[in-house]
C-alpha cells in the first residue's frame, strides 16, 4: 500500500518537476543563444514569467470548441507520454509500456494541436502543420531505425530493460557500441525538437509562427507548457536509449546536455527549405542509422 502511495506521489510530483525543468531549459536556451550572439539575454526563469503572463491574459480570441480543445489535447497528450518514459530510474507507468507505445503517445499531442489549428482556419497555421507533418515523416524514419537497433541489440522494447542493460557506469552506455545509431538519433532529435535548421513549421518570418498564429493568451500558455514537457520527453528518449538513464540529477544533466548540443547548432544555423530538410533526413541520417542497424544485425 505504501509503495503504491509513493508511486502516486511520484506520478503527481514528476509532471510538476518536468514542467519547471522544461521551462528552465527553455529559459536557458534563450540565455545561451543570447550569449552565443554576444548579448546579455533574459533571466533563466524568463519562460516561467511568460507562462504566468499568458495564463493571466484576458479575451484571447477563441475560434471554436476544437480550437480550445487543441492546446488542451496537446498538453495532455504530452503529459500522458511523460508517464511512459522513465525519468531518473523512476518508472511512473513505464513498466507497462515500451518505446513503440511512447512513440505513438507522442503523436497525440501534435494531432490535437493540428486539429485546433485547423479550426483556427488560418492558412499560415495549416502550412505550418503541413510542414511539421512532412518533417515528421522525415525524422520519424531515422528515429525508428535508431530505436530499432537498440531494440534488436537488447532484444527488448521496454525502456526499463534497456536502462538496466546499460547499468554499470559510462562504459556500459549504448552510446559506444551503437555509436552510429546514437549519432543518427541526435540528428533526428534536432528535427524533433524543432531547432534550426529544422524550424520550418514555426518560421516566424515566413508564416507568422505557423501553427501558433491564431493562439494567444492561455492557449499559447498551454502550448508553452506543452513545449516545455516535450523537450524533456524528447531528449529523454535519447538519454534512456543511449546514455543509460541515471538518477534524477544525472538524468536531467544528461538530458540538458543533449538539448545543449541541439541549441548550439540552433544558434548558428539558418533554416532549410522544407523539401531540403525532408531530403536531408532521408539521406544522411537515414543512411547512418541504417548502417548502424545493419552493424547491430551482423554483430548480434
Amino acid at each position: 500500500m505504501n509503495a503504491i502511495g509513493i508511486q502516486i506521489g511520484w506520478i503527481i510530483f514528476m509532471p510538476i518537476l518536468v514542467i519547471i525543468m522544461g521551462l528552465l531549459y527553455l529559459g536557458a536556451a534563450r540565455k545561451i543563444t543570447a550569449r552565443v550572439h554576444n548579448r546579455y539575454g533574459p533571466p533563466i526563469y524568463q519562460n516561467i514569467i511568460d507562462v504566468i503572463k499568458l495564463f493571466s491574459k484576458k479575451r484571447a480570441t477563441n475560434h471554436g470548441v476544437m480550437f480550445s480543445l487543441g492546446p488542451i489535447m496537446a498538453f495532455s497528450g504530452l503529459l500522458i507520454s511523460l508517464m511512459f518514459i522513465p525519468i531518473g530510474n523512476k518508472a511512473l507507468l513505464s513498466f507497462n509500456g515500451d518505446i513503440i507505445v511512447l512513440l505513438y503517445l507522442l503523436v497525440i499531442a501534435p494531432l490535437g494541436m493540428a486539429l485546433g489549428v485547423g479550426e483556427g482556419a488560418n492558412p499560415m497555421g495549416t502550412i505550418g502543420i503541413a510542414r511539421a507533418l512532412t518533417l515528421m515523416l522525415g525524422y520519424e524514419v531515422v528515429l525508428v531505425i535508431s530505436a530499432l537497433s537498440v531494440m534488436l541489440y537488447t532484444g527488448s522494447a521496454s525502456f526499463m530493460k534497456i536502462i538496466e542493460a546499460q547499468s554499470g557506469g559510462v562504459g556500459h552506455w549504448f552510446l559506444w557500441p551503437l555509436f552510429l545509431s546514437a549519432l543518427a538519433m541526435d540528428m533526428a532529435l534536432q528535427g524533433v525538437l524543432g531547432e534550426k535548421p529544422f524550424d520550418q513549421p514555426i518560421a516566424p518570418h515566413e508564416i507568422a509562427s505557423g501553427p501558433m498564429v491564431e493562439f494567444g493568451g492561455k492557449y499559447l500558455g498551454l502550448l508553452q507548457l506543452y513545449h516545455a514537457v516535450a523537450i524533456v520527453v524528447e531528449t529523454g528518449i535519447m538519454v534512456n536509449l543511449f546514455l543509460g538513464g541515471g538518477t534524477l540529477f544525472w538524468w536531467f544533466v544528461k538530458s540538458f546536455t543533449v538539448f545543449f548540443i541541439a541549441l548550439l547548432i540552433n544558434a548558428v544555423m539558418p533554416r532549410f527549405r522544407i523539401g531540403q530538410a525532408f531530403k536531408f533526413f532521408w539521406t544522411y541520417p537515414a543512411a547512418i542509422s541504417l548502417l548502424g542497424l545493419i552493424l547491430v544485425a551482423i554483430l548480434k
Partner: protein
Amino acid sequence: MAKEKAPKGIKGWAQGRSLWMLHFCTGCGAIEMPPTMTSRYDMERFGITPMATPRQADLLLITGYLTVKTLKRVVRSYEQMPDPKYVIGFGSCTVNGGMYWDSYNTIKRLDLYIPVDLYIAGCMPRPEAIIDSFTELIKGIKEGRFDGWIRYRENIEFYKRNQAMVMDIRKWSLDTELAERIWNEVQEERKKRFERATVPHVYELAERIPEGLPK
C-alpha cells in the same frame, strides 16, 4: 459592471517582465529596431521579444507616420490583441504628424484613434530612447498605471467615431454592428467636412511656406 482594473501584484509583475511586442513598422522607424534587439542594446534582457502575430503580442509598437491606409491595419491589429495590451507611439509622426503634417492622407495624432500609452518623440528616436521607454513602461505596468485597453473599451464610441471620420470602419472593425451604427451616424458630418475640405485652391509660391516660419 465593475470597472476593469489594470493587473497588479504577480500578474502585473509578470505582465511587465514579459512584454511581447508586435512592431508595426510603417515607415522609417523600422531601422531603429534591429540595433535595439541585437547585441548592443539587447532588449531581450527585459523579456521583450518580437512576435509575429497580434494574437501573441502585448505591446503594439507603431513606428513612424500613419497613412489612413496603415491606420486601418493598425486598428485591426490592435483589436485582435488579447487584453491587457499596450501601445507605444514611436517617432514624431505619431505625435503630431511630423514632417507629414500637411499630407492629405496621413493622420496627425495617433491617440485620437487608438489609446496610446507612451510616446517616444524624435525623428528618429535613438535606441537609448526606445530602451528608456520600455523601462518606463515596465515600471508603469507593475504599478498598474497603464490602462489603455480599458480606456479603449470604455470610450469605444469616441474612438470609433474618430476612426469613422477617416476610414471605413465597417470593414476594418471587429465589432461590425457597432461600426455600422457609428458609420451611419457620422456620414452627414463627414460629407460636410468633405465638401469644406475639397474646395479647389491653387497655392501661390509665397503661400507654400507655413505661417510662423520666415518667408
